[in-house]
């Protein structure tokens, strides 16, 4: 009975961590411009942080061969030849963490030419770590229980 109750409590806590709406800090949207160099097989800078609602200009310059930049989740892309840089403009209206990646085959490691765009908080990361903590902690009482049992056995 007590086991069932604590399990229920645990599941409830898990649901809260997973789905509870977070207070959204209201930061006035602004326009941000990123100058991104694309070369085999990386972007620099490759880790972008923006706030939800910001207007993003990604000015893409290829420094060796033709590269592209596709943003996961937003499903938008831009292509730049060396000498013909290009700009991708969009409103970061979806919060979360997204990979952006090259969508023009640019050599062997092309599938792994990846960067990261974080819009607001990387909430999936924080929520999953929260869930992991919850999961790990919930095992501790049980573990110490089995420890006690081993001790008892040892005493016997």
């Amino acid at each position, binding site marked *: 009975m007590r086991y069932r109750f604590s399990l229920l409590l645990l599941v409830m806590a898990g649901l809260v961590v997973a789905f509870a709406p977070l207070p959204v800090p209201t930061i006035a949207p602004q326009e941000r411009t990123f100058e991104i160099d694309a070369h085999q097989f990386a972007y620099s800078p490759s880790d972008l942080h923006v706030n939800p609602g910001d207007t993003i200009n990604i000015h893409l310059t290829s420094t*060796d*061969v*033709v590269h592209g930049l596709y943003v996961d989740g937003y499903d938008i892309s831009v292509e730049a*030849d*060396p*000498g013909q840089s290009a700009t991708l403009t969009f409103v970061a209206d979806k919060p979360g963490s997204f990979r952006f990646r090259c969508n023009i085959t640019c050599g062997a490691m092309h599938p792994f030419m990846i960067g990261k765009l974080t819009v607001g908080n990387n909430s999936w990361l924080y929520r999953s770590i929260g869930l992991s903590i919850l999961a790990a902690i919930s095992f501790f009482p049980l573990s110490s229980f089995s420890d006690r049992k081993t001790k008892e056995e040892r005493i016997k």
Partner: protein
Amino acid sequence: MKRPELISRFLIVTGILLAVGAPLFFWARTPLIHARMAEDGGWNPDVIQAEVGEPLHLKITSDDVVHGFAVGQMEMQSVDILPGKVTEVTLNFDKPGIYTFFCTRWCGLNHWRMRGTIEVSGSPLDPEPATVPLYVSLDLDLDAPHDASAVPNGKPSATSGQLLETNLPIDQSAEYYRSHSPYEVFEGLQNTSLTEAQRWDAVAYFWQSNTTPESLANGRQLYAENCAACHGENGAGDGVFADDLAAAGESSLQTMEGAMDMAMQTPVDFTNPQRMLGASPALLQGKILRGGMGTGMPMWGSIFTEDQIWDLIAYIYSFQFEYQH
């Protein structure tokens, strides 16, 4: 031996033979032209035979990155050669000769080395008399210094130039424009009542009146596709490969023997007025046609048509002059 065993063996052997034979058969029957970055071999094959009057069908694929294909001196839209994809091209030649095909999408520092030839045989064999380029008939020394000894304080404005008196002592012929540098035309206006700034404005207007918006647009396009990667999108000689060229020059063999001018160099800065205002269109034509002879500047003679080069030159001067839009 039992029948099922025999049938199974037959199926397995046939299957394996098919799995090996069928791809090999079709592979051997599909002659592809492979495009690779120049340092990995460029075009393979890089010499193609053709006949006048016979359509030449080519199947081209890229083995690494995005390339393009076009034939120099020909009216053809360049096509993209995408990695792992096959692009089919049909070419028709009406004159025999040796044509150059080249990569049209930048594929690294050595992109411009990615060239091959199409040897077209057949009649008519009598070649049309080749027109001698202007820089040859003017007997220009392409490598001589040509800096202007005076430069304007700001960008000369064609709009202001247009407002000046119309009967300035400038020879309005195309030959005069092509064979004189802006500085020489500026000098030619010495005996007028104009101030120095006004004289530069008049030169700007003269340069603009020798081109058209269409030419400038075409030149801009050619510049973006072929020049900007080294000379910079704004002409400042700071393109994405500029540093690589300089680094390649420092480490090249030629510098070790002291001949700096034959080594890879930092690309020319088209926003530099000394250099550009002292250069005549004919001189620029020569430099583009011949190339930089080892400096990293490609030879464009076999690729651009004469009109394309004049369009490009008209656009390059727009880094010096404020044109009307």
